[in-house]
């Protein structure tokens, strides 16, 4: 619980774990369907004008910035094999 932050604040390349999604029901469900759920591993790759490029479980997504601020993440150690 120490270092939770919105996804937008996580530096590119930092592997993170999703701890919470603060969004309305429709959006939350959509994210779940796409595999962005509690405990998913997410890695920001870069950002273009207002839009984030992330990798979730190896799949590439484009995320609007508004949505990215609603996804709370915490960093996980690099090379942590127990990720699941």
């Amino acid at each position, binding site marked *: 619980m120490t270092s939770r932050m919105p996804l937008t604040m996580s530096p590119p390349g930092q592997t993170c774990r999703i701890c919470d999604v603060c969004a309305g029901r429709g959006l939350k*469900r959509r994210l779940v369907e*796409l595999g962005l759920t509690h405990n998913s591993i997410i890695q920001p790759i870069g950002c273009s004008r207002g*839009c984030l490029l992330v990798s979730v*479980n*190896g799949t590439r997504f*484009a*995320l*609007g910035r508004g*949505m990215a601020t609603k996804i709370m993440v915490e960093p996980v150690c690099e090379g942590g094999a127990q*990720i699941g």
Partner: protein
Amino acid sequence: MAEKIKVAVAGNPNVGKTTIFNALTGSRQKVGNWPGVTVEKKVGTKNHNGHVLEIIDLPGTYSLTAYSADEVVARDYILEEKPDVVVQVLDSTNLERNLYLTTQLLEMGTNLILALNMSDRAERRGDFIDIQRLESLLGVSAIKTVAGEGKGIDALLDSIVAKKEQNIPLPHEIGYGGMVEEKIYALEEIIKDDPEVFKHYPPRWIALKLLEGDEDVIKKLSSESIKGKVQDFLSAIDNEEYEVEMADKRYQFISTLMPQVCTTCAEEVSPSDMVDKVVTNKYLGIPIFLILMWGMFELTFAFATPFMELIDMFFGWLAAAVASNIETAWLASLLGDGIIAGVGSVLLFVPNIFILFFVIALFESSGYMARAAFIMDKLMYTMGLQGKSFIPMLMGFGCSVPAIMATRTLEDEKDRLITMMVTPFMSCGARLPVYILLAGTFFGRQAGSVIFGLYVLGILVAIVSAKLFRIFLARGKPSPFIMELPPYTKPLLKDSLRHMWNEGYLYLRKVGTVIITGVVLIWMLAYFPQGAEYGSAGSLIGSLGKLIEPLVAPLGFDWKIAVALVFGFVAKEIVVGSLGTLYGTGGGEALSSALMSDPGFTPAIALGLMVFTLLYVPCIGAVAVIKKETGSWKWMFFQAAYSTAVAWVLALVTVLVANLVL
């Protein structure tokens, strides 16, 4: 012959679903609509060991809730048509997420086969997927496939036949835990007496969807009193809580399944990273996109030229042959001035159309298309749309009809409406012949750049219009943007060629039907009344042209252009075809020189005409599909009137400015 086996192919987007479909059906596809991008049902048939399979390609979806029009299409097909077998295509390198859709298909009681696609990639990185385990745990059949190389396709066909014969449609149930199950049971009790549900749908599935707050499912109930009871029941509980709980349970189910069926399923280190860093770069992204687009049109122009010359020569020869061999004056005129001149001038552009569609197919299948949406998101957002809207717009470069249908992937109704309204401004393939003729005639070596400029103008008008619509018609913010970017893949040459052929074939068919009718009609109007000189102001078409000439006279257009534009509403290629008929020259060189020598046809007028053709009311096919997709005459007429007004104003500006500059 055995009875038909109905097979539906489902799956997440970007898992190679269309490739599997192509591999399953071979060349025997009935392209009911526009193929390549899965926006509409595609049906193919296949004979396999004496069985006839009818295979339907469903739109790619992540789940089967009623989130977007695509999902509703896929879901309703499974519910209403009850295919004998459903094949779900999965990405083996991303099994966990793909299994989410699997759980939903199982709950609907489908007879399911899993095609574990891209299995070579999974194996190469050391994943081992235990197929037998997966089959026994889920009660499905599973086959490993590599669609691009045709691996596993025969096994898949065998499995479909076997699955049909064994046919035990046993709905697989996920336990949702006491609290949720209680509600599911209560709902099942309420709806079980509804005659529609009783006849058609698995009651538990309906109950699940109701509990998830799926409004589309409520509509499926036929009894009003039961509907009322359901609504009372649902309003008494907190939907949202259940919905999240159920999604969690599904994932729990999947995550307990995963370690049992897949050992060493690892995180993928993607090779796309480097490429993505460049093409989606803050500064480089848009320039790279523009360069690619520009290259596309240069290529379309340059590659096609030799072929066009051949076709031109052929029609020239044909026209000469007709002129010297047919005695009857009117028949010679019908064939020569009418059909050969009109159709020939349109057929001339077949090479361009084929090359354009081929390049678009390459963009799509390589994964770049999705990046383009990503790059454009910021721009689109400031203009009141989201990045995803850019994909239908890009497809509009091919043809507006499938592009407008592709807006179904947009979840938000307002986003979708605005996208449909502006997509026709994207310059479609049918307008290309007009540019090629006019730009080629009047701008020589700069033709490529002029055409590129027209495409950019189309994009700009679309974007500005979107902004206006957002402000005045459909207020609100674009819905949040989230989109999967498929990994870059080597585009499959065969699939791109198939896409090119399918689209090109539609063009050819249009020439054979709509356009030939159009030019014959124009010829008749130009030939009669008897005694009048062919295509002159004294002919019927001349009178018609004179009648409408005042409408476009401020732009400097004469009656011939007016007529061409009127008939261009049928199909925009006809603008060229009717010029060919009216000048009585046929296409190509002859028409070019006729235009050049017409003092009323200046380069400024040519530019204005190109701008007008680009922007004015889309062809009848596109207008019809707007009516169908918006379900409203009002929006259809609005689009037609708005685009024509914009065309008129901008063409006027173009002509005035060009007169000063050129």
